[in-house]
Every structure is written in structure tokens, then in C-alpha cells.
């Protein structure tokens, strides 16, 4: 079987991506789908800011505002931020540990398609009566009362499907990192981004099941007559809040830890210095993850859990500031005395530190339970979580996009346009959210679609809306940059930035399908940098050149996920229409039928022969 890349038709390329199990192509899929949802969520954010630009505005009123607000949050967290992080994990982690592939290529593809169809299903709600409208947290007290349309059902079923995909992705990364590291790649020689992926995957594995259970309860209550959250029949809406936040708080670390990992790579690369305090960085990452499971109730201080529970969760929350502070100082010390190169990714990294610290400081303020009664449900909270999520996660995503784009696609994004994007985004971000702290402190409630004049909120809201447009323009420039780069960007060598430290920079950009012609021997932290410092241009191989085993492509992941997509439609409408139940069952049959096929049809993969590998390597060296 030949694997040499030829010019292919559009249909062939499409089929290739629909059936691929290659982690590098799955990374492209995550990047495209996550990027699309990021634009969608951004558009929703703009609509929110337009509505709030002046008092008593009637651009988006009442229910529609609630839908846009809910979908903005849900889309950004579940369908944009996480998949974009998964894009980088897929693109980079197997390369960073010197692996030819992930542990479960088929499952990896299945995870992507589950996420994709879940997100698609959720967004179908826009065209079928109305989107979910109970906030991204979808508290049961609101969600069970939302009876005008099926919005909430699209939320519960869509997130269940995409959640399955996320759990699969997490198991795949855990096993890949534990079992498939190259010889010499001990745990304490793993790059920080790989460490972050590892810890994040563990968080996903243990945090997503409670969400799944909560969503199942919500689905049962709304569609099948359950009584979990119905107080009239003995149910309790607080159970949803607990289940949601037992997931929801680890979720914010699921977002931020990989972002920390991306920045750790960037700081070390462009300071051209070893990451300061590597072991303490690893320890801090693990500690943050551990604490992350013990603080969920700080989202519920005003529920009435009592002073003892509030105090315990307040102290646990404040404790997280310690390992986070360790990280901040380590990044500063990495730059200290380094020979710093100010590239676009480094701009984001440097800007991230003060921006994120501000979000951290307001986080500690919010963790003081007594004070939280004042901040609760105000724009102060909105400002806080946008400072950590935009100032932390989105900055990291933009930085990662610029940093790994040459590795993923073989062409360098334009640096001038990149820096323009950065400045517009950075200024727009602070313009939008800084002033929201003060709007919140002066009493502006979150999630309310309008406000009255003469309460002192006009200027603040106007400034905030202007800032949002800065970020929108920045995103458009990034898109233009991507188009220009794809059309006529300069091709780059393997070590695209010239300062690569980790294994991914030691192979061609984009990497060949088998990643490493010979599995490398890792001799220390920053394995590629070590080799370069000894005057070598390539890695030390750990094995002779030989045939390479590869997994077969498969269309089944797509079908399995599609089946659930069909089933979700059926069950959503099973109370309204006769076709509901049969369609639901049909969907499940498609899913379980294709799982059965997967089980009974042997899949041994295939081999790329040594001669072909040699030929491909020669081509790669010339490119």
C-alpha cells in the first residue's frame, strides 16, 4: 500500500479526513471544527455586547437574549476551547514523546466525531424552535421551567454525546503517554505540555462522568417523566448544582492546565533557556488538579450550605493560589537572564502573565465566602472568569496557533499580521472586561438583558462593547493571515523557529505520516536541544530503520457518532410525534450495529516498508 502523498481531488481529501485515524489529521479536524465554533461563540458574544451597548436597548430582548447568552457560554467552553486544546494535544503530544501514533487511533477518531455531532446537534436547536436558554450552567430550577421549546433537550443530549467523545480522548491520551513514550523519555523528562495533557486527561476522566449523570437526570426529568429535580415529587434541584460543579470546577482546570503547558513551551523556547523549576512546575500542575476536585462548592456559597461548608471550600479555593503562584514565578524566572526573542507567541505569553494574575486575584477575592455574597451573580464574576478564560485560555490558544502552525501545516504564519492581531486582541480584551469589574461592584447583575439609564452603567457598557469589536477585528485579521499563509506562506524546515527544544521540532514540518522514521533515544529534558548543543542536527535513533506498522483508516467512527446524532433527534421529539421513538431506536441501532462491526471485523493495520520510508525521508529532507 502506498502512502506517498499525491495531489488528490477534493472528494478524495474529504474522504481521507472522514475516515482518518492519524492523530495529525484529527488535530486538523479539531482545529477546524473548534475554530468554527469559536467564531460562532464570538458572534454570539458580539450580539450580547450590542444589546448592552446602551440602556433600554431592544436589539435582543428577553428569551432570545437568554438563548444567545446560554449558547455563547456553552459553545465557548465545550465546543471551542476544549476542542482547540485537543487539536494541539493531538498535533503535538505524540511527537513530544517520540511516538509513531496514539494508543487508540480508532477511538481518537471516534472521540472527534462524537464531539462534532454533539456540537452540531446542540446548534440545530437554533433552527428547531429555539436554543437552550437556562445559562451554560443550566440550573434545574430554570431548565425544568423552560417549556416553550426543546432548547434544553438539545443541551442535555448534545452535551452527553460530545462528553462521551471527550472521555474517549482523555483515555487515549492517558494510555498514549503512559505506554508509548520513546526509550529514555522518563516521566520527568516529558515536556510541560505533555505533562499538562496527562494531568488534564485524568481530570477529564474523573470530572466528566458526574456531568453525564447530571445530564441523564435532566433528560429523564424533561423527556421521560423523572422526578430528580422536581420538588413537588420529592426531587431536589440542588443535586444538579452539585453534580454540575463537581464537573464544572475541574473543567476550568481542564481548560487552563493545557494552556499553562502551551505557555511553558513558549517561554522556554523564546527565552532560549531551560524551563525554570521544571520539577516544581510538574508538582504544581498535579497539585492544582488535585485541589481542583475539592473546591466545587465555592460556586454555591449563596445556596445556603452553612458557614462550615462555606469556610472549608473557601480555604481550599484560596490554597490553589499557591501552586498557581509557583507557576507564575517559574515563568518569570525562565525569562530572567534569557536571550528573549519577541515573536507573536511570546507576545501572548508575556501578556498572559499580568492578565491572568488579575483574574487570579479576583478569584481569591471571590473565594472569600462572606464577600462573595456581594459579588455573586454580578458583572464582577463575569469580569473574573473572562480574565482567567480569555486572558489565560484564549491567549494560549492564539499563542499555540501561531507557535505550532508551522509544525502542523509546514508554513509560517505572517509575523506582522500576527502582532497586529495580538495588539488588537490584547487591547480589546482589557477594554471589554476590565471595566466590568466596576460595573459589577456597582451592582450590575449578570445574565439580565438590559438596564435602566442613570445608574452610572452607560459609559462602562459602551466601553465594553467597543472592546469586543477590537477582539472581533483581531480575529478577522487572524483569519486573513491564515488564508494568506495557506496560499503563499513560506515553507519552513522541521525546526521552524530555529529554537525548538522538544522532539516535535526534530522532524519535518508537517511530519510524515509515521512521525519518526526511527524511534528516537531521549537523553534528557529538552531532548532535541541537547542534541543541537552537541552539534548534531538529528536525534539519536533508538532502533534500526525498519518496516513501520500503521493503523487502517475507518469510516465507522463517523457512523457510530452519526447514529447517536439521529437517536438524539428521536428521543427529543418522542413525546410530540409518533416518529420520535422509532427514530431514536434506529439511531441506537446504527451506533450499536457499527460497534458490533468494529468488534467482529479484525483490524490489524498495515506496514510501510523500509524502502518507502527511506524514499519519504529523502523527500522530506529536500522539501
Amino acid at each position, binding site marked *: 500500500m502506498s502512502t506517498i502523498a499525491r495531489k488528490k481531488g477534493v472528494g478524495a481529501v474529504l474522504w481521507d479526513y472522514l475516515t482518518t485515524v492519524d492523530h495529525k489529521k484529527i488535530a486538523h479536524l479539531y482545529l477546524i471544527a473548534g475554530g468554527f465554533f469559536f467564531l460562532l461563540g464570538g458572534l454570539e458574544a458580539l450580539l450580547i455586547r450590542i444589546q448592552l451597548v446602551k440602556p433600554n436597548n431592544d436589539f435582543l430582548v428577553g428569551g432570545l437574549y437568554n438563548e444567545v447568552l446560554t449558547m455563547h457560554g456553552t459553545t465557548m467552553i465545550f465546543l471551542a476551547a476544549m476542542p482547540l486544546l485537543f487539536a494541539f494535544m493531538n498535533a503535538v503530544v505524540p511527537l513530544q514523546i517520540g511516538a509513531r501514533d496514539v*494508543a*487508540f487511533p480508532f*477511538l481518537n477518531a471516534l472521540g472527534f466525531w462524537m464531539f462534532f455531532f454533539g456540537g452540531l446537534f446542540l446548534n440545530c436547536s437554533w433552527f428547531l424552535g429555539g436554543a437552550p436558554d437556562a445559562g451554560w450552567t443550566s440550573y434545574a430550577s430554570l431548565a425544568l421551567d423552560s417549556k416553550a421549546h426543546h432548547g434544553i433537550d438539545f443541551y442535555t443530549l448534545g452535551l452527553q454525546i460530545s462528553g462521551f467523545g471527550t*472521555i474517549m480522548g482523555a*483515555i*487515549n491520551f*492517558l*494510555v498514549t503517554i*503512559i*505506554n*508509548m513514550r520513546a526509550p529514555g523519555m522518563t516521566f520527568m523528562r516529558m515536556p510541560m505540555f505533555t505533562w499538562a495533557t496527562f494531568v488534564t486527561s485524568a481530570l477529564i*476522566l*474523573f470530572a*466528566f*462522568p*458526574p456531568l*453525564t*449523570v*447530571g445530564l*441523564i*437526570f435532566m433528560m*429523564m*426529568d424533561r423527556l*421521560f*417523566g*423523572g*422526578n*430528580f429535580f*422536581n420538588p413537588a*415529587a*420529592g*426531587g*431536589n434541584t440542588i*443535586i444538579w448544582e452539585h*453534580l454540575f460543579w*463537581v464537573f464544572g470546577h475541574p473543567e476550568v482546570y481542564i481548560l487552563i492546565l493545557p494552556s499553562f503547558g502551551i505557555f511553558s513551551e513558549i517561554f522556554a523556547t523564546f527565552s532560549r533557556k531551560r524551563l525554570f523549576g521544571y520539577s516544581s512546575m510538574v508538582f504544581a500542575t498535579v497539585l492544582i488538579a488535585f485541589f481542583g476536585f475539592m473546591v466545587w462548592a465555592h460556586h454555591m456559597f449563596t445556596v445556603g450550605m452553612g458557614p462550615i461548608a462555606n469556610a472549608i471550600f473557601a480555604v481550599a479555593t484560596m490554597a490553589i493560589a499557591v501552586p498557581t503562584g509557583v507557576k507564575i514565578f517559574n515563568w518569570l524566572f525562565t525569562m530572567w537572564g534569557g536571550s528573549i526573542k519577541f515573536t507573536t507567541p511570546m507576545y501572548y505569553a508575556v501578556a498572559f502573565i499580568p492578565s491572568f494574575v488579575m483574574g487570579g486575584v479576583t478569584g481569591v477575592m471571590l473565594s472569600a465566602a462572606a464577600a462573595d455574597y456581594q459579588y455573586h451573580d454580578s458583572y464582577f464574576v463575569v469580569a473574573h472568569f473572562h480574565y482567567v478564560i480569555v486572558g489565560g485560555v484564549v491567549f494560549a490558544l492564539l499563542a499555540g496557533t501561531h507557535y505550532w502552525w508551522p509544525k502542523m501545516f509546514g508554513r509560517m504564519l505572517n509575523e506582522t499580521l500576527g502582532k497586529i492581531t495580538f495588539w488588537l486582541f490584547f487591547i480589546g480584551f482589557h477594554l471589554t472586561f476590565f471595566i466590568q469589574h466596576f460595573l459589577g461592584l456597582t451592582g450590575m447583575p449578570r445574565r439580565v438583558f438590559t438596564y435602566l439609564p442613570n445608574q452610572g452603567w452607560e459609559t462602562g457598557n459602551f466601553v465594553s462593547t467597543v472592546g469586543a469589536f477590537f477582539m472581533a477585528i483581531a480575529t478577522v485579521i487572524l483569519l486573513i493571515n491564515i488564508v494568506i499563509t495557506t496560499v503563499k506562506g513560506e515553507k519552513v524546515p522541521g525546526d521552524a523557529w530555529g529554537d525548538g527544544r522538544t522532539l516535535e521540532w526534530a522532524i519535518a514540518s508537517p511530519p510524515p505520516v509515521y512521525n519518526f522514521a526511527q524511534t528516537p533515544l531521549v537523553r534528557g529534558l529538552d531532548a532535541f536541544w541537547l542534541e543541537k548543543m552537541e552539534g548534531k542536527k538529528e536525534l539519536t535513533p533508538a532502533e534500526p530503520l525498519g518496516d513501520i506498522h500503521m493503523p487502517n483508516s475507518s469510516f465507522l467512527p463517523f457512523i457510530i457518532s452519526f447514529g447517536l446524532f439521529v437517536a438524539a433527534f428521536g428521543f427529543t421529539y418522542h413525546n410530540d410525534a409518533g416518529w420520535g421513538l422509532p427514530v431514536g431506536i434506529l439511531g441506537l441501532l446504527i451506533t450499536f450495529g457499527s460497534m*458490533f462491526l468494529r*468488534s*467482529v471485523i*479484525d483490524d*490489524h493495520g498495515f506496514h510501510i516498508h523500509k524502502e518507502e520510508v527511506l524514499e519519504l525521508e529523502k523527500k522530506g529532507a529536500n522539501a
Partner: protein
Amino acid sequence: MHAEEKLTAETFPAAPERATLEGKNKFLGFWLFLGGETVLFASLFATYLALKDKTNGGPSAEELFQMPIVFMATMLLLTSSLTSVYAIYHMKNFDFKKMQLWFGITVLLGAGFLALEIYEFYEYVHEGHKFTTSAFSSAFYTLVGTHGSHVAFGLLWILTLMIRNAKRGLNLYNAPKFYVASLYWHFIDVVWVFIFTVVYLMGMVG
């Protein structure tokens, strides 16, 4: 060693489920999956405990649960876990026929358990304990029903493996599959031990 190798009782490795990289990955990945499943059931148990006394005028746990049928179901499932251990024992000794036999007994015992559970649910519904009756009933059926659907899935899974491999015997490609299916079966059994204790025993003692 690779997956397609033809093996004999002498060359068959001591841990066939982990003899290939694919097997090692499956083995570890499945253990991690069970970790996630544990959290899933923990959430279901926590909710059940919070709602178990909210009967909304419907029958309570003491009125419903009958020891004989639950005890019988428990014995069937516990025994099936033991028989699946025998199956894996014979798999490691490269004795395909005996493995199939013991897996067959496992499936029969599991099917017996499932039949008893379906009968039990049927009885409860007749006594006015429906899914929609109360918060207690919703939590009960969701917890015990999730376990039951795991049992059903496990039965179909083991049966599929037995039929698919009936003619070709053991190799390093299917040995990890049999092994993780048996892990899954043990997990279901452990969850049932907790259901028996937390739902039925605590329910009957009050």
C-alpha cells in the same frame, strides 16, 4: 510478539493480554475506563442516597424489596464472576474449549440475573412503583437500571466474542479482548455488591 502469530500451548505467553503493545494499551485503557465508570456510579449512588426517602406517597423501600429474589439474583451474579475467573484461567493455559465453556456458563448466569431483575421491576411497577412515581423511584430505577443495562451490554459483548472466535481459537489479537470483557464483568459484579448493600440491605433495614 505480534498479534497474528500462530501459537501453541508452549509458546503462549503467561500474560497473553499484555503480550503485544495493542494488548498493553487495551489493558491499561480499560482500567482507566473503569475508573471513570466508578465515578459515574458514585454519582448515581450519591443521588440515590439523597432521594431514597422521598417517596411522594408511593411505596417505600421497606414495602417493596423482597429478600429471596434479590438474594437469588446476587448469588447468580457473584457466581458468574467466579466462572469468568475460570474462563480467564483456561485462556492463560491456552485451553480454548474450556474457556468457551466457562464463558458460556458466565453468560447463562448473567442472563438469569437479568431475567430476575426484569421480573423484579415488573412486579414493582404493578405495586405502583413506577419510574415517574417519586424522586425515590426515579433514582432507584436509574441506578439499578444503569447497572442492569451494563449487565445486558456485557452479555452481548461476551457472546459476540465467543461466537466471533469460535472457529479460530486463541491468539494474541483476541486474548486481550476476552480479558477486558472479563474485567468489565467483574466491575459489574462489584457495583452490584454495593447496590445490594446500599439499596437493598439498607432499604430493608431502613
